[in-house]
Each structure stands twice: as C-alpha cells, then as structure tokens.
C-alpha cells in the first residue's frame, strides 16, 4: 500500500486551475520532494493532502484513508511542519511541546519522556523554559520539527522547512531529516533549494501550472532532461563567441552578462572559447538546471 496516493487531483480558485490533474504515488519510507515555482500548486496540493483545503476533484488517500473524510485519523499519524511558524507565543518551549501533545490527546510520563528526548535531539534542551520570541529563526524551525514528531508520525510533511535558515541551521535540519528517513518514516518535502532536494530526496516531482511535468530520482531527472555539462562564460565578447562556436546540439542561455551552454561535448567548446581569449568554466549539470529548463527562466510572483 502507498503511504500517499493522489489521483487526478484538482483545485480551482476564481476560475484558475491551481491544481490541474495531479497524480502521485509515494511509497512507505520514501523521501519525496515536491518542487515548483511560486504559485505552481505545491502548497495547495499539500493542503488538500492534509485536509486543510477542500478537494474540487480527484482522490487523495493518505495511509490508505480517503481525504478529507479521514482527516482526524490521518492527522493523528502525521507530522506537519508548516511553511510559516505556528508556535504558540504565549508559551515557553516546553509548554509548546506539552500543549501540542495535548492536542493529540497525549499526556503523562511517557509523553514527558518523549518531549525530553525530542528537545535533546534538536538541541533545545537548554532552552526549554525560553519564550518563543527569544528563539532564533533556526531554533524555531527545530522546535517546529520536534513538535511535529510528538506523535511518532508515520509520515512527515514539510513545507519549505529551511527557508530563511543559515547554512549551519540548514545542515543541522538535514541531519535530522536523514535520521527520520533512516528510521523508516515517509517524508514529503517542498523546497526552493534544489541542492537540498537533490541531497535529500529519493524521488522528486516538478510541478508547474498545477501539473506534474517530471517525476523521477534526482540523478535520472538530470540524465534524462538535460545535457550533462554546463560551460559558463562571461565578458562583453561572450555573446558573439558563443553564437559562432556553439555546437549544433548545444543550448545556450543568457543570464545577465553570463552565458550558460548546456552541452554533451564540453572540451571542444572550451578549447575554442579559450582560443578567443575567453575563460570558460565547466561544471556538471544539476537539478537546478533541470528545473530552470522545465519551468522556464521568467520571474514568477
């Protein structure tokens, strides 16, 4: 049985198809990434998954239970890390944990032990009596994660959990997520950081205009959708040089005053560019290149 199964999911706001026929199947224990530009339908899809947005069409089953009918039962077994902080500012760290546990109907010595363990895990034990407003952004995110794990969830859903974190805090959170993955928890992540998705996820779906436009392992997405190498070159003469030297199957793309050339044969191109006095650099294509190719370079708001 799939942990999550979404079929032909649809949502329309004021005539706009925000989610337009999404199919997804996530296996138990899988770390799944949902990527897409702003407004692509990621968060709306997640909200329907959690029973927080009415479903206009299609079917969602979480842990075998249909949504939204099964919302109470499903959320009992789910951990949710929302995009925006919902920590309770009227309470301290430990009170936040206890109050949240009470929402699940959990109390008593077992829960207290679990709270201690979770605070230990996210390095917040010495902050247990601190007020929420006294915590840094990274601490708040860690507390949000610890809180989401209070019910020992089978599935954890994270909506942009690392947005606004510094690299140290991000790496710390990654470690936590890997541990969860190793313990058999199913994880669903949305993020705008492609290296994060590439680093963590077993499988990734790229969603745009409410549809899934690609879904596979990160390495397969890169192998299938884009040339393996990227030659980067800058300077005033770069444009003309590339126009004349680019191979027939290469693709060139300009970002500000830098040119990117996606190619399967980087050596020949580099040599020719060097002969013209330019200094090209070479790197392997990554998920961000795939993402930009599939969803375009135009700004989204």
């Amino acid at each position, binding site marked *: 049985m799939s942990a999550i199964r979404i079929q032909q999911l649809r949502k329309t706001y004021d005539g706009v198809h925000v989610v337009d026929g999404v199919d997804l199947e996530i296996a138990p224990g899988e770390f799944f990434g949902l990527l897409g530009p702003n407004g692509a339908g990621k968060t709306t899809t997640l909200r329907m998954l959690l029973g927080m947005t009415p479903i206009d069409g299609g079917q969602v089953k979480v842990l075998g239970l249909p949504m939204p009918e099964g919302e109470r039962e499903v959320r009992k077994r789910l951990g949710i890390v929302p995009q*925006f902080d919902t920590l309770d500012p009227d309470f301290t760290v430990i009170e936040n944990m206890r109050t949240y546990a009470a929402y699940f109907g959990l109390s008593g010595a077992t829960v207290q032990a679990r709270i201690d363990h979770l605070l230990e895990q996210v390095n917040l034990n010495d902050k247990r009596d601190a007020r929420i407003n006294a915590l840094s952004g990274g601490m708040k995110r860690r507390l949000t994660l610890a809180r989401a794990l209070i019910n020992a969830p089978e599935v954890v859903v994270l909506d942009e959990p690392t947005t606004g974190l510094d690299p140290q805090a991000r790496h710390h959170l990654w470690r936590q997520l890997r541990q969860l993955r190793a313990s058999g928890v199913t994880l669903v992540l949305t993020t705008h950081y492609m290296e994060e998705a590439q680093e963590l996820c077993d499988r990734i779906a790229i969603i745009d205009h409410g549809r899934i436009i690609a879904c596979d392992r990160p390495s397969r997405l890169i192998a299938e959708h884009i040339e393996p190498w990227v030659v980067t070159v800058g300077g005033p003469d770069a444009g003309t040089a590339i126009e004349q030297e680019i191979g027939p199957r290469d693709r060139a793309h300009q970002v500000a005053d830098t040119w990117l050339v996606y190619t399967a044969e980087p050596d020949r191109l580099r040599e020719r560019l060097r002969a013209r006095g330019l200094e090209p650099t070479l790197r392997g294509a990554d998920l961000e290149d795939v993402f930009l190719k599939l969803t375009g370079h135009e700004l989204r708001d």
Partner: protein
Amino acid sequence: MPDPTSTWLPRPSLRFVAVWRRNLRVWRKLLVPSMLGNFGEPILYLLAFGYGFGRLVGDLDGMSYMVFIASGIICSSAMFTASFEGMYSAYTRMAEQNTWLGMLATPLTLDDIVFAEATWAASKGLISATTILLVAAVLGLVSDARALLALPVIFLAAFTFGALALVITALARSYDFFLYYFTLAVTPMLLLSGVFFPLQELPDWVQTLALALPLAHVVEIVRPLMTGSWPASFWPHLAVITGYGLAGLILATALIRRRLLR
C-alpha cells in the same frame, strides 16, 4: 464545488477540551491584568451608579437601586467579557498568532476549535459574573442561594455572546471592525435590556426591539433569581438565548471554515 458529503452543521468532538485548556493555561499566566479588566470595571459601575445614582432614584420595582443594578451588571459583564474574548482574543489567535493553524496540523478540526473558543468565552463570562456575584453578596445585594441558579444561565448566555462574537471575528479584516459590532449591537443591548433601568420605562417599539435581542432575556431570568423570587417565565427566555447561541455557533463555524479552509 462543495464536497457533497460536507455539512453546514458543526461537528465538534470532545477533543475541544484540549483547546479550552490551552486558553485556560494562557489566562492563568495573565491572571491579574485579565481579572482587573473583567471584574474591576463592572464593580466600579456597580458602586458609582449604585451609590451615586441610587440616592436620586430611590427604590425600583420594590428593591433598592443598588440591588436592581447589581443583577443587571452581572449580566452585562458576562456579555462584555465573552464578546471581548470572542473578538479581540480569538481574532489574535486566528489571524495574528496562527494558533488555530497550528492546531489544524493535529487531529483537531476547525469545528472543535470554534466550539472550544465559544466555550472558553462562556467560561470567562462566567468567571467575571461569579466574581461580581461574590462582591454583590458581600455587599448584601443578593437575597438568597437562588442566586447560584443564575450561574448556569449566565454560562449559557456567555456562550451565546461568545458565539455571536466569533461570527464577527470570522468576518473581520482587522481589529477596527469590532467597533461596528460594539456600537451597533453590544452598546444598544447594554442600554435597552433593563440593565440600568426597567425595560417597561421604554416605548413599546423599543421594548419589542430589546426583546428581539438576547441580553434582555438574560436579565429577565437572572434578576428575579438574585433578588429572592422566581422568574415570571423561564423557557421562552431560555429558548431565545439558546437560539441565538446555536445560530451563532453554526454561522461562526461555517464562516470560519470558509475563511481558513479554502
């Protein structure tokens, strides 16, 4: 398209108690300023009007003015406390602190949350009415133990005012919006429902208007119980209070669902 299996009727579960207790815990932290607001002001009204005005008025309906007004102020303080809680405090939790959003990540539903908020508003209304009742008893303004029977009615009434306030909260875009409700509903009720002077002094059409609103019915039940008699009628008044409460709860739940679960 609405989900065909969905219903407009709220379906709260017993889990609402966890939300109620969360509010209780926060309240206990802010006990002193909170009590001063809910309890200090009505006591000032009681003493100032009772002593100051009472000398001019003499007896009213066969009781001293102070006794008359004590029962009225208990009712109006329950209304004010519950309305404030259902508007300013609930709005803060809904729109400013995202407290409800956090709860929706757990087995709680919005129906649980709205019901809990109305019950919490009722509890706060009851707390402030009870403290005023105690003071009134100490001042010798309460006839006998029948006054205790007023408390369940106060709780129900405060639930009603809390639920109605939550309807306004569901529609509010900012705190300023609540002034409309206070000016157009709460203040008229305070002045026209027999809190400060007998309803019968007013023109017929004003009496009809007052009896179309819940507070007058609360006063009609509570005043006799506090002054040593039985209400002339009970069930019709109770029906109006309950009707407003149920309508408020159903409407508030539907509107808040529409606002947050979209």
